[in-house]
């Protein structure tokens, strides 16, 4: 498959995406952006699975990606619900608010 993208490129892309997601997770204080960063990290992992599946011509990689999609959807549903609750209660979605010792 001469036209195929080499796997190392795909893995490199996945690494960059994962690092970007992690950095976003760490530096952003807005919970919505943190959730988005987590999505980016999940997709980076999914990309690595798909690339590996393509490399060996196995369907497992795509199956795993479907799982990750399902997990990500569930995670976002709960995460957004929490964010919404937090907005209603505190009028703010700052992640550092959750760390207050008295629990809110």
């Amino acid at each position, binding site marked *: 498959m001469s036209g195929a993208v080499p796997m190392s490129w795909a893995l490199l892309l996945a690494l960059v995406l994962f690092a970007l997601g992690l950095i976003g*997770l*760490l530096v952003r204080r807005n919970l919505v952006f943190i959730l988005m960063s987590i999505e980016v990290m999940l997709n980076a992992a999914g990309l690595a699975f798909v690339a590996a599946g393509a490399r060996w011509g196995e369907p497992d990689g795509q199956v795993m990606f479907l799982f990750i999609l399902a997990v990500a959807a569930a995670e976002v549903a709960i995460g957004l619900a929490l964010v919404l609750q937090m907005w209603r209660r505190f009028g703010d979605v700052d*992640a*550092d608010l959750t760390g207050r*010792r008295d629990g809110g």
Partner: protein
Amino acid sequence: MAGALPFVIAFPFAGFVILALAGARMSRRAVAAIGAGSVGLAAAAALVAIPAWLAAPHRELVCTLWRWIEAGSLSTPIMLRLDALSLVMTGVVTGVGFLIHLYSIEYMRDDDGYARFFAAMNLFVAAMLVLVLADTLVLLLLGWEGVGLCSYLLIGFWYRDPANGRAARKAFVVTRIGDTAMLIGLLVLFDRLGTFAIPELMARAAARWPVGSPVAIAVAALLLAGAVGKSAQLPLQTWLPDAMAGPTPVSALIHAATMVTAGVYLIARTHVLFELAPPVQTAVAVVGVLTLLMASFAALAQHDIKRVLAYSTISQIGYMFLALGVGAWTAAIFHLVTHAFFKALLFLGAGAVIHAVDGEHDIFKMGGLARRMPLTFWTFTAASASLAGLPLVTAGFYSKDLILWRALSAPGIGPLLWAGGLAGAFLTAVYIFRVVFIAFVRPAAEPGRALHRPGPWIGVPLVVLAVLALTAGALEVPRTLGGVHLFSHLLSGVLPEAAHEGSLGLEAGAQLAAAVVALAGVAVAWWAFGRRPESVAAPLGTAPRRRVFELWADGWGFDALYDRVVVRPLVRLSEAAKGDAIDALAMSIAGLAVRLNRGLALTQDGRVRRTLAVLAAGAVLVGALAVLT
């Protein structure tokens, strides 16, 4: 059925477990049913085990439940043994215990700690049953310590009053002195004879040690110290009067069925050792006589009805020790049984009185109760008659008479011991009828005061015990009065009977003396306290007499003496040793833990993003290590 034997212990223990875990959420009716029912079932299980016991070889029913400790040559199975001695003890513990539990249903009805009370009472009975049914000394020790624990829990039952907590602690610590000596004795026995099984131990001791050998004397002395602590004899008797801090049914249980009789049982169970150590056996008798005289005088001067009974228990246990000391093993156990009946009854009667007059303990503030509480009066009087040993019609006469006769016919200092016992019998009659005349017969101190009349749960145990306190003497009647020997025949397989028998005329004379002395005691009590009601409140005339009475009321000042000689120096020593090197070491370990805690607590500041960053850095580090190496 031989299989019923473990259930004798299992029922009260199960009652304790259920009440301790779930008692707080149960209705009072359910608590009472479980608390009293479990002891009743234990008594039933003991009855069921009797046919198997009769059929067993040598009338010894042995039942191995499981192995407990196995280490090298040390092997201590959980083994129960039902022979005539433990059967009698089991009968007393479960029978009298059951009646006391029935009584408690009503007596404790309004108490907040209803379930806690019955839980501890059940554990008390279970521990005492372990003690009397144990076939190994280790199991016996388990029951022994269990009894000590329960006495602590129950004496300090009303823990909101610090005085009760102090009394409980005193009981625990003072008996612990004896327990420690006993533990040393048990370990010496194991070290020398290589077994904990009681029958095997006794056989080996008799085979290996000659009479009067130093080891036997040392072991017997150590066991005696244990028995003295548990049974509240001189010089460790000081805890018992204070143990009155507990609820009255607890006093009844401690004094009649459990706890204080443990020392008598221990000596009877290990009588072989005491026979090998004649000096110690003589010491047992001397301790008994001194204690019974000391306690009788102290009982004469008490104002608190329960303290009179407490000193009375000390003195009656003194009679049992006297019997043990002169080798009248059966007589000691017989007196233990009759004492259990009449002392339980005295306490339950006293409890009914205290209940009726709103918790008043002072006999001088009672009075006139005979007409207003006839049932309590008559049963209390029956028990008093039995305690005083009024001739022919009471159980106490037969058992006490047996002890006195054995003491008189014992060689050596026997007549001296007998004289002491006889003087004690006179004092016994005086002090107990002093209570009867002052509290019941004398006109009321505060007429018109409302009385709570006892209900059926209190009345029935009183009547049953009164019947037993009067008639149990028929089990063993001396030959001068017809000669019934059911009790000594029952125990003859376990306890040897003294071989010496004096002349018939002397025995009749001794009995006559005992009878006259008891009647004289009642007469003196009537003359001093019943005849002239107005003089009772101030029976103390001149100063020296008053001082003697105050000394007696103080229990001969033992508390003050121990406080000065033992307690205060100990407290001062421990205060001086508060900051020594060992303490500093222990404190520095604690300080290190505190500092570590403060350091580590900094990392747990609850900031999510910082935690995540550290986590990510760690993951990168691990990943880098995995790739680079």
